[in-house]
């Protein structure tokens, strides 16, 4: 065996690459270890976690590592899938302790399997007052139907309907002539409907005009009514004033009535004395009348001769008066005597004189 160091390409243990290689290798190892450790830590590998379980008849779609979510947030994974003696399956979940605290006694787990999504367990926290028991943390379990199952169900339900549609379509195709007749009649009916619609449109226009006119009248009536109301309001105000006046008048009437009452009271009180005085007065008058009769009877005997001298005296007095009136300045102060005889003409010269002047 020749010495390897004889060739320039062969380097010994003191190769300058050695340190560089060790450093770069070390950095790579650290990066890989850190990455794996971070992933493992986030997946709860370094913590015990909380164990929950549920029992199901079949574990299709579930395996160790399947994601467990709560409200859409990943909180753990399936840790074990065990077959039980009664052929059921016990599925154990490892979940975050914080998520475990949110679960109530009626918490449940749903298996969700969508076409483009990996299978996952969705936890429903429940609404019971009591928390999930620590000694037996068993969850209810159900499977949500996949899109394929929903499609199969729809296919099962819609299949007969589609068959009926096919039959109807075939029947329609067989009676095409009838349908064309119906369509023609439908066309005619449509045209009639169009004419009717046009008439209705005209009627609507008339109605619109009438409504517009009536609206004007209504506006006028409303204005009139407003005025009437205003007047009524004013009348009411006046009536209120009248009532107030009437009240004051009634008060005055009451006052007068009060005074009248007082007068009546006074009259009532003084009436007997007054009646007595009146009676006495009447007796006096009777005596005076009697005296007068006796005097007149006595004078009747002497009066007629006296009366025969009166006319000449009257004539004398008239003459004196006429003479006096003719004396100035009395003649201008004493108006002429008014004629007792009606004039034959309706013209009153004395009344018209001021106008004529």
């Amino acid at each position: 065996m020749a010495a390897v160091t004889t060739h320039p390409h062969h380097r010994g243990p003191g190769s300058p690459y050695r340190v560089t290689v060790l450093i770069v290798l070390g950095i790579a190892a650290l990066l890989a270890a850190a990455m794996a450790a971070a992933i493992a830590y986030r997946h709860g590998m370094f913590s015990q976690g909380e164990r929950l379980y549920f029992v199901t008849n079949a574990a299709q779609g579930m395996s160790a590592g399947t994601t467990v979510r709560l409200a859409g947030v990943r909180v753990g994974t399936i840790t074990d899938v065990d077959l039980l003696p009664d052929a059921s399956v016990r599925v154990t979940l490892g979940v975050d302790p914080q998520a475990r605290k949110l679960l109530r006694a009626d918490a449940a787990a749903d298996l969700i399997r969508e076409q483009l999504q990996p299978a996952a367990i969705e936890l429903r926290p429940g609404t019971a007052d009591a928390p999930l028991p620590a000694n037996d943390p068993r969850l209810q379990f159900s499977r949500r139907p996949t899109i394929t199952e929903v499609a199969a169900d729809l296919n099962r339900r819609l299949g007969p309907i589609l068959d009926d549609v096919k039959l109807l379509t075939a029947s329609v195709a067989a009676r095409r002539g009838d349908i064309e007749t119906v369509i023609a009649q439908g066309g005619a009916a449509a045209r009639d409907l169009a004419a009717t619609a046009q008439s209705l449109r005209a009627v609507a226009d008339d109605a619109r005009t009438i409504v517009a006119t009536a609206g004007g009248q209504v506006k006028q009536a409303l204005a009139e009514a407003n005025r009437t109301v205003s007047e009524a309001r004013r009348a009411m105000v006046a009536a209120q004033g009248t009532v107030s006046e009437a009240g004051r008048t009634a008060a005055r009437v009451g006052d007068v009535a009060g005074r009248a009452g007082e007068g009546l009271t006074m009259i009532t009180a003084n009436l007997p004395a007054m009646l007595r005085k009146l009676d006495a007065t009447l007796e006096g008058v009777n005596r005076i009348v009697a005296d007068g009769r006796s005097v007149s009877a006595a004078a009747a005997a002497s009066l007629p001769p006296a009366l025969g001298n009166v006319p000449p005296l009257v004539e004398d007095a008239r003459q004196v008066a006429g003479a006096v009136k003719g004396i100035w300045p009395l003649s201008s102060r004493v108006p002429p005597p008014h004629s007792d005889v009606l004039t034959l003409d309706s013209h009153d010269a004395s009344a018209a004189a001021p106008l004529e002047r």
Partner: protein
Amino acid sequence: MIEGSFRLAVGYTSMLVHATMRRDLLRRADVRASFVRQVHRTGVLTVPFVLVVGLLFGAVVVTRALSMLGPDNDYALHGVVRGGVRELGPIITALIVIARSSVAIAAEVSLMQLRHGIHDDVWGDAAHEEEVVLPRVLGVATASAMLVAYFQSAAIGSALLATAWNQGTTIGNEVERFLLATDWYEVPLAILKGAVMGAGIAAIACYHGLAVRGAIGDVPKAVVATCVGSVVFVMVVDAIGVLAWLL
């Protein structure tokens, strides 16, 4: 063709078996030095390329995929993260190694054969092919595993930054989503896959390099065969990995 493919498969496997069976050769200083040198050339010197590709992959591919599939789609996020971390990381790293190192290894070993022969004293006690194959297979495997780690870090980091910027969320929120969307074993699994691919690439390169016998025209043939064989090997390993995961 089937016979040829079978022969190639047996030859590749023999390289890997020889390297594995003679791992005690690592006690020798010259073999360790060769191993370190291979790690340096395939791994350390390739880190910048891998980082650039990883940054671009995370910033462009992951962001675009999430924007098309829906940022709230857990399945999309799961697929993108797993695809990026477990599948694309090792594959892209392997393709870089193929383009940059496997052809170099094939050419180097071919020229060794042509110039001096494996038995030449210049190459030390290389009477056994394992002494040529072992440091290269282990070195490329180690370098590939390392490059996968760098690729994952760069791709995930840039994807988180770009997604947070693109969708107006926080970095913390995106980190949280990423951590929940994948499993811890995805990281070592991808690194392991990268190591297997690197070892296979190096074994294929050594096989074709050692297969050169006396003609200079055999060298490009060996290089081309190494390229094709390495790509096929990477795809086969990835397919086997997917099948194993599904089963």
